[in-house]
């Protein structure tokens, strides 16, 4: 709420710079505006992207050469755990919910979310959850003087988390942090679904919603039913650790495999929770830079919802090596491969959108095109891993690490960068530099491929994941060195990106309302939009309301 001010300022000291600074801070901390909360989420995610990136770099330096002693095994395990937890819960989820927060109300012509205060609660719960997790570096040792940050892996398999094997408080910080972040995330997901169901502007039928809104709503609905099993599992783990329960205590008849089921019932749909917003960004950006409406809108919606449902039935493909029955193996292999069908539909629809279009290679488009190629490869290695005998050979090897980093970096992170370049002008009123953006794109793509294409090979040569070092005679050394070399390129690319943001905030080109000549409602308001979004509530007649505005002679609604 930009109009709010501290009572101090009212005393006539409004010109004092320090007070004005305080007033700005007060405005951001107490805000319930969906746009400000969206920006807070994204900035928070980018800060932790840097932190998680440093953790990954430490691991890559350790693995660059055989028999390395850059860090101890204990520190390596902590870096591994914190990197995974950070990237999923403190980077992926906040950035995507941030974009959903910022864009969904604008795109459906609403003035705010359905529950603005719950929205603020969701952000701050996530923010403090992250601080709780990182406080473990200081407070994790506990009375036993054991450990600091959690070192049980982001999957925290039992019995590693049992009191006997994880002394001190590090696992408790991990559990509580994820529980708290889960509460915030569930609140925000609830908010996004309710906003979309209840606050669409007149004429915005479900069949006219921008694909981004459809996908964000699917992602939020999935979050409601997949984040909660994780919270339930964390409650059970806390009961085991603090009240002496036996859920995952094998000596008392409990089952360590049950934790794996509960974790992956969350864990696998979670990767779709992360990638569906990536699809959302691509589905908005590709049409604008191809100067065509999206190809196959109804098929895209159906494929999205289909992926949402299918993804709930694939979790045990993470557990083929646990020793399930062959019926279970077959079921989960089939469902996993079935996800490839709606995903393939999407790939073809995006290609259909590009086909015959008047393509503009602006930076957001570059990132989306990079996504198309890389996500396809990531999906193909996914299909490979879905076949059980293949998975028995390569599960828990670096091939798997390469596969999911291909999805999450080659797929998701690329689209996030594309989305930042695309919507930064809307959020700040200034364009990001195209020249620096191209440097960012190309360096990042080169670094990405150096690291993650190469990483498949040591995996196939038998290098297991989660090891802190390896013998020189295994033949993995040169590949690991190349992987680490790629990190340098990615690091420089990220630095260029941060420099681009800082520089453009100060003296970027003024964007105007609609710098990309786009068609969805957020481009009709000023950049940045006013607190109330729309002075007059919009009315829409087609999927591309701004096209109708700009082309009154040939509006879309004539063809619906």
């Amino acid at each position, binding site marked *: 709420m930009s109009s709010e001010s501290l009572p101090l300022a009212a005393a006539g000291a409004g010109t004092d710079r320090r007070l004005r600074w305080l007033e700005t801070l007060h405005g951001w901390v107490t805000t319930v505006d969906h746009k400000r909360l969206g920006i807070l989420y994204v900035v928070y995610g980018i800060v932790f992207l840097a932190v998680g990136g440093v953790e990954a770099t430490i691991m890559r330096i350790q693995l660059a050469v055989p028999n390395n002693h850059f860090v101890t095994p204990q520190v390596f395990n902590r870096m591994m755990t914190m990197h995974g937890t950070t990237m999923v819960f403190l980077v992926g989820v906040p950035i995507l919910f941030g974009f959903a927060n910022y864009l969904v109300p604008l795109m459906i012509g609403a003035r705010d979310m359905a529950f603005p205060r719950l929205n603020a609660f969701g952000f701050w719960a996530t923010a403090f959850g992250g601080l709780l997790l990182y406080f473990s570096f200081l407070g994790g040792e506990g009375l036993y003087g054991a450990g600091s940050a959690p070192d049980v892996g982001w999957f925290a398999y039992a019995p590693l988390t049992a009191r006997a094997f994880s002394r001190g408080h590090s696992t408790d910080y991990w559990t509580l942090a994820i529980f708290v972040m889960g509460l915030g995330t569930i609140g925000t997901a609830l908010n996004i679904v309710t906003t979309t169901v209840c606050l669409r502007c007149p004429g915005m039928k479900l069949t006219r919603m921008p694909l981004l809104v459809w996908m964000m709503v699917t992602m939020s609905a999935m979050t409601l039913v997949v984040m909660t099993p994780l919270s339930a*599992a964390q409650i059970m783990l806390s*009961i085991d650790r603090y009240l002496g329960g036996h859920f995952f205590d094998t000596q008392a008849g409990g089952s360590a495999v049950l934790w794996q089921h509960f974790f992956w019932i969350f864990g696998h749909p979670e990767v779709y929770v992360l990638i569906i917003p990536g699809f959302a960004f691509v589905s908005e950006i590709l049409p604008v830079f191809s100067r065509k409406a999206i190809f196959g809108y109804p098929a895209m919606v159906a494929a999205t919802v289909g992926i949402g449902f299918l993804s709930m039935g694939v979790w045990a493909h993470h557990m083929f090596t646990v020793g399930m029955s062959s019926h279970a193996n077959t079921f989960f292999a089939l469902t996993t491969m079935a996800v490839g069908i709606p995903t393939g539909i999407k790939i073809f629809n995006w290609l259909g959108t590009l086909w015959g279009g008047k393509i503009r290679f602006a930076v957001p488009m570059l990132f989306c095109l990079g996504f198309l190629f890389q996500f396809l490869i990531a999906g193909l290695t996914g299909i490979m891993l879905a076949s059980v005998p293949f998975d028995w050979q390569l599960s828990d090897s670096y091939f798997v690490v390469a596969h999911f980093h291909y999805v999450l970096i080659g797929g998701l992170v690329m689209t996030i960068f594309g989305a930042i370049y695309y919507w930064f002008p809307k959020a700040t009123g200034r364009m990001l530099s195209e020249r620096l953006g191209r440097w960012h794109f190309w360096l990042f793509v080169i670094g990405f491929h150096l690291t993650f294409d190469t990483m498949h090979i040591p995996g196939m040569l038998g290098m297991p994941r989660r090891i802190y070092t390896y013998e020189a005679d295994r033949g993995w050394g040169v590949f690991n060195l190349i992987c680490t070399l790629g990190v340098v390129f990615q690091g420089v690319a990220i630095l260029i990106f941060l420099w681009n943001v800082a520089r453009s905030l100060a003296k970027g080109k003024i964007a105007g309302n609609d710098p990309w000549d786009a068609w969805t409602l957020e481009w*009709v308001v000023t950049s940045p939009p006013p607190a109330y979004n729309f002075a007059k509530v919009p009315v829409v007649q087609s999927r591309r309301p701004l096209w109708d505005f700009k082309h009154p002679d040939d509006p879309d609604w004539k063809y619906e």
Partner: protein
Amino acid sequence: MSVRADAWPRPPETWRLPSRGPVGMACLILAEAAIFTIFVVAYLFYLGKSATGPQPKDVLEFPLLMSLCLFSSSATITFAVDALRKGKLGAFRAWWAATIALAVAFLAGTGLEWRHLIVDKGLTIRTNLFGTTYYSLVGLHAFHVIVGTLFFLVVLGLALAGRVAREHAERTHVLALYWHFVDAVWVVVLTVVYVIGR
């Protein structure tokens, strides 16, 4: 290219969307249902796997009276919301207070049951797998009853202060939806713990 943001076309004749309270509550119920599902699955999975006693059939008795209390509270809260919709504030307060009394009776029943199990039967959350899963599942449900009761008390306080009027009927309706869900969960817990599990 910019367009004028005030020259929207004429809105459609009929444009009605659901109100946000019930939709938000439906989402919450969906999320909560997933949490309870995990606890119910854990309970069923660990049935009969306790390494030591006591076993469910040795100690559990079907909690008929307290279940009746909880189920009837779903009726009384419906009467309360109906009364408020019609603007009958006295009837609303009476039915609302009755709901709270029934909820408290249910909680008292749980308390007595747990006292019996802990003191007389020696079953705690750390005794065996049955104890762990039983107290977790029933406790999670009881926690939801407590949260609901606290909200009811807030509304009762506001009602006694004369701050609840007819226009708040929809808000009490949203609370009632939550309460029906807590009731429905008890049907599942009752079946799983006291019928199948025994």
